């Protein structure tokens, strides 16, 4: 079962259009909810005015004053209110202030426009520079949402003695997840003799996050809140934390109106208000000896974290932990800071900080090679981490890591050497369109950072179904990545059954245990492993009870399960996460094993730069990665290809334009994600090196593909038309033209 391309379990319903996403669920007596938001970056809310011409008596109106429990979204730091109250500080544009519900969507929209917020303006901090300068203190005592330092050895003496010291500054922009299904939540509130019960269904990645948020908002016991993740039309991190806020809003409206309420954001609202990838800037100082061996690295990594902490501490952590890249280096200092600004808080997006810092280091390595007159392939080859080396946190590589092999494979697949020579000649002969090759070597830490998994102590399980089949119990959600299928495969393999005998239960908090959020490339590796363990226990139980004898047919297994149910009414097995004893992590010193393991990759590409228009066309893209064991090759390829496409968008086109703290290009016509016409076939190669942390040796692979494309592309553009100051993504044609003119000016 493991290693086979089982057909996606929910795929048939999807191609038929029969899948019910949140906006598709028919609900009797439904009201619709809408959100009135601030339009200024900072100020004090002084008043709320309800305009003329709207039958307000028909509406349910909720403000902060209505909130029965805590007006804070439960998160890493509980600093973000569900709604800003009168007299309180508005911290960013698009901040929710008033909620409205009505059965008629058109009237509701008219009403939303008729509410006027009176906000007394305060000076605001709109970018990282202003935040660092502390022009205004908007958060804590220093505008820092989080600060992290990683230290290994002592870089300082190297700056004097090294043969080469190369410095560089790099920037990455915000990026919208652009799941095709916008944010959507359905809320029900019912009161019985035991009190209020809130039920949430929606497009959400982390049912237990929402569960916690609702329990706090209404001050309810855990069993009075039920959260179910419905099928999702994409998420990519964008439905990790923001749904907690929307679910709170929908629940408040449902509770106050006495009707089920659905909130569906339209694309503009979704783009303007919800989370994005954190904008970043990175300064790297590096020292090499005369042979190109890396001696020291000093990295200053900064993220724009927006107005509240939300996910910034953990995004910063991951970014910082990936900042030194895949290189062996004896002296490393990394300083990470997430800076507060009066902008809508960014959040999780595939890669989670790593694409930002890896862009910097992988672009930097090419620039170092240029400065040192070395081949970028050779420079990397001399510095790759190997078995026994230690990373910046002191984490020792315990697997048989062959980055050079990975790189060579990608270069061969791309035909790098031949193209390199050919393009050099062709570019000289016809400079109108110049081609270039480039690549990046990188990794992604699997699962939660540091002690995250230990703190979570996730549980997953298996349950006997009345017909003798088995159901997987986990809170992990399906957003297109194929979790239903992969979990079923893992369980089927461990049970010794065909996949049809395994179901995956809906991600409903009343039914499944807390297996943690569906993030951090952890579902297959961490939760999958728990499912495998629970499945082994399940089968063992049947054998020990004498109900099943090996070898068995699926029918015999079914009969045994039914017999077990007849005997004891229900049969479930669970497994809980325990940190492997060799894995040590210290949160205060940032030393130890940051991740149980990493996936490793080299992505190589060839691009054509049209020097008439400065458009970049991606003509070939090869993604070679080592991801442990591949459970379902077809689904895994799909994950990589989709991630690469997003990475290409991040590198070349996708730009969030801000004015006064607000995103202004909030439509698909002016925020350009790649169409089919913009992408080449994305070629994927898996190298397998099974790892004990995951089921059947699998590691997590969902985020990895986001990390490599941007630096690989800019390295290729530099080959084609450089050397240019290609230090920023997205490298739009406008920027590329500016960079080319910079060189022309001298």
């Amino acid at each position, binding site marked *: 079962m493991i290693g086979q391309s089982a057909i996606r379990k929910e795929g048939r319903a999807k191609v038929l259009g029969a899948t019910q996403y949140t906006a598709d669920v028919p609900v009797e007596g439904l009201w619709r909810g809408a959100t009135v938001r601030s339009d200024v970056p900072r100020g004090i809310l002084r008043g709320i005015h309800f305009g003329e011409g709207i039958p307000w008596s028909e509406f349910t109106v909720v403000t902060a004053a209505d909130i029965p429990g805590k007006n804070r979204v439960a998160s890493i730091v509980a600093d973000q209110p569900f709604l800003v109250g009168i007299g309180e500080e508005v911290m960013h544009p698009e901040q929710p202030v008033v909620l409205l519900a009505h059965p008629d969507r*058109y009237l509701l*929209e008219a009403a939303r426009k008729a509410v006027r917020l009176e906000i007394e303006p305060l000076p605001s901090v709109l970018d990282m520079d202003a935040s660092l300068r502390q022009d205004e203190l908007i958060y804590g005592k220093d505008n820092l949402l989080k600060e992290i330092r990683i230290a290994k050895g002592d870089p300082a003496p190297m700056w004097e003695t090294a043969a080469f010291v190369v410095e560089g500054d790099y920037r990455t922009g915000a990026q919208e997840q652009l799941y095709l299904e916008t944010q959507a939540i359905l809320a029900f509130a019912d009161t019985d003799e035991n009190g209020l019960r809130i039920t949430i269904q929606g497009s959400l990645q982390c049912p237990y996050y929402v569960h916690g948020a609702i329990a706090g908002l209404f001050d309810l016991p855990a069993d009075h809140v039920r959260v179910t993740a419905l099928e999702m039309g994409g998420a990519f991190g964008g439905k990790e934390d923001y749904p907690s806020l929307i679910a709170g809003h929908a629940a408040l409206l449902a509770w106050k109106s006495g009707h089920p309420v659905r909130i569906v954001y339209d694309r503009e609202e979704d783009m303007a208000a919800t989370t994005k990838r954190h904008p970043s800037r990175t300064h790297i100082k590096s020292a090499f000896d005369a042979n190109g061996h890396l001696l020291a690295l000093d990295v200053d990594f900064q993220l724009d974290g927006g107005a509240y902490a939300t996910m910034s501490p953990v995004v910063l952590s991951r970014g910082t932990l990936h900042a030194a890249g895949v290189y062996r280096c004896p002296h490393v200092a990394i300083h990470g800071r997430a800076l507060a600004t009066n902008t809508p808080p960014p959040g999780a997006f595939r890669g989670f900080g790593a694409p930002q810092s890896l862009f910097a280091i992988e672009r930097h390595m090419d620039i170092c090679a240029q400065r040192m007159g070395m081949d970028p392939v050779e420079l990397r080859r001399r510095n790759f981490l190997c078995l026994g080396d230690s990373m910046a946190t002191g984490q020792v590589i315990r697997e048989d890591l062959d980055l050079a092999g990975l790189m060579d494979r990608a270069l061969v697949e791309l035909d790098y050497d031949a193209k390199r020579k050919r393009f050099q000649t062709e570019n000289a002969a016809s400079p109108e369109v110049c081609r270039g090759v480039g690549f990046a070597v990188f990794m992604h830490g699997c699962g939660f950072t540091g002690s995250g998994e230990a703190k979570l102590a996730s549980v997953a399980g298996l349950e006997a179904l009345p017909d003798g089949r088995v159901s997987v119990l986990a809170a992990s959600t399906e957003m297109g990545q194929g979790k239903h299928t992969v979990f079923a495969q893992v369980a089927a393999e461990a049970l010794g059954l065909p996949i049809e005998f395994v179901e995956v239960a809906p991600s409903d908090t009343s039914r499944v245990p807390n297996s943690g959020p569906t993030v951090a490339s952890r579902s297959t590796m961490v939760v999958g492993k728990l499912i495998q363990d629970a499945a082994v226990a399940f089968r063992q139980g049947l054998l020990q009870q004498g109900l099943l004898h090996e070898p068995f047919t699926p029918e015999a297994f079914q009969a045994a399960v039914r017999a077990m149910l007849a005997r004891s009414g229900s049969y479930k097995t669970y497994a809980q996460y325990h940190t492997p004893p060799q894995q040590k992590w210290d949160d205060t010193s940032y030393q130890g094993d940051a991740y149980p393991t990493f996936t490793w990759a080299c992505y190589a590409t060839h691009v054509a730069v049209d020097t008439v228009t400065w458009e970049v066309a991606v003509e070939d893209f090869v993604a070679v990665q080592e991801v442990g064991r591949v459970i379902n090759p077809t689904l895994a390829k799909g994950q990589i290809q989709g991630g690469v496409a997003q990475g290409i968008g991040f590198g070349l086109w996708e730009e969030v334009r801000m004015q006064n703290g607000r995103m202004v290009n909030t439509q698909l016509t002016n925020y350009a994600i790649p169409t089919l016409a913009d992408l080449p076939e994305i070629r994927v190669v898996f190298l397998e090196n099974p790892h004990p942390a995951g089921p059947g040796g699998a590691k997590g692979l969902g985020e990895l593909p986001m990390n490599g494309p941007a630096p690989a592309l800019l390295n290729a553009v530099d080959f084609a038309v450089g050397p240019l100051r290609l230090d920023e993504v997205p490298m739009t044609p406008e920027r590329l033209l500016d960079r080319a003119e910079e060189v022309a000016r001298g």
Partner: protein
Amino acid sequence: MRGFLPAMELQRPASLSEALQMLAAHTGRPFAGGTDLMVVYNAGKLRETRFLDIARLPELQGIRETPEYLDLGALCTFTELLAHPAIHRHFPNLVKSAKATGALAIQNRGTLGGNIANASPAADTPPCLLAYGAELELVSPRGTRVVPYESFHQGYKVMDLAADELVARIRVPKYSDTSVHYFRKVGTRQAQAIAKLSLALVAQVADGCIANLRIGLGAVAPAPVRARHAEGVLQGQPLADLPMVAALEALLADMSPIDDIRSTAHYRSTVTRNLLGQALRTLSATGN
């Protein structure tokens, strides 16, 4: 959906004359393929509330070919244009621009008349129609008048089109077989993209010299414009020795690009000049 449905009206006049009467009586504005209007309606930014569905009026449909010109109904969709052999034979720039308009579902619905009357500076067929020297046939209850397309756009969304007039047909004169046609659109991406800028050029070559040159520009002025200054420098010049530098310099006077959500004034101006350079290189290559 941010539009307020209950306030909207959409009626279907039974005939052209009824449509014109209704227009004259201010009963509504024309609504053709809706690919511009519905976007504005969806965004809740449509100011007018009353519309007339003109999409089925036969007088505004169809493509007729005469020896001198092609006569296109305002309601021709981009897909209909692309399906007509005469367009491919005589107007390669229209083929390119129609193919570069949105994507298939937009081409199936969007009309040439709508593309013109929407008066977006970034629309794709207008620069081509300018370069081809098209004429518009406008109808109103007062009758029919024919205007040269080059005088139709008079400023940002300002047109030589009265409130009671419809764009009925578009006439495009055929060029000789030896003409050179160049069109290029630079969008935000390779499909489903609005132009950051575009340039259409048509020229005939006589005795080794440029004759009958017309250049149309998109997205670099408040409306689609002819590049008259650049044309003036190039008209009649020998292909073997085109005044490139002077032409590119003159082109600056034809443009007034702006910074906006899609691009920068600098990029627009530089790349439009680059396109002219490329077009002229193509032109000289054909002359050699």
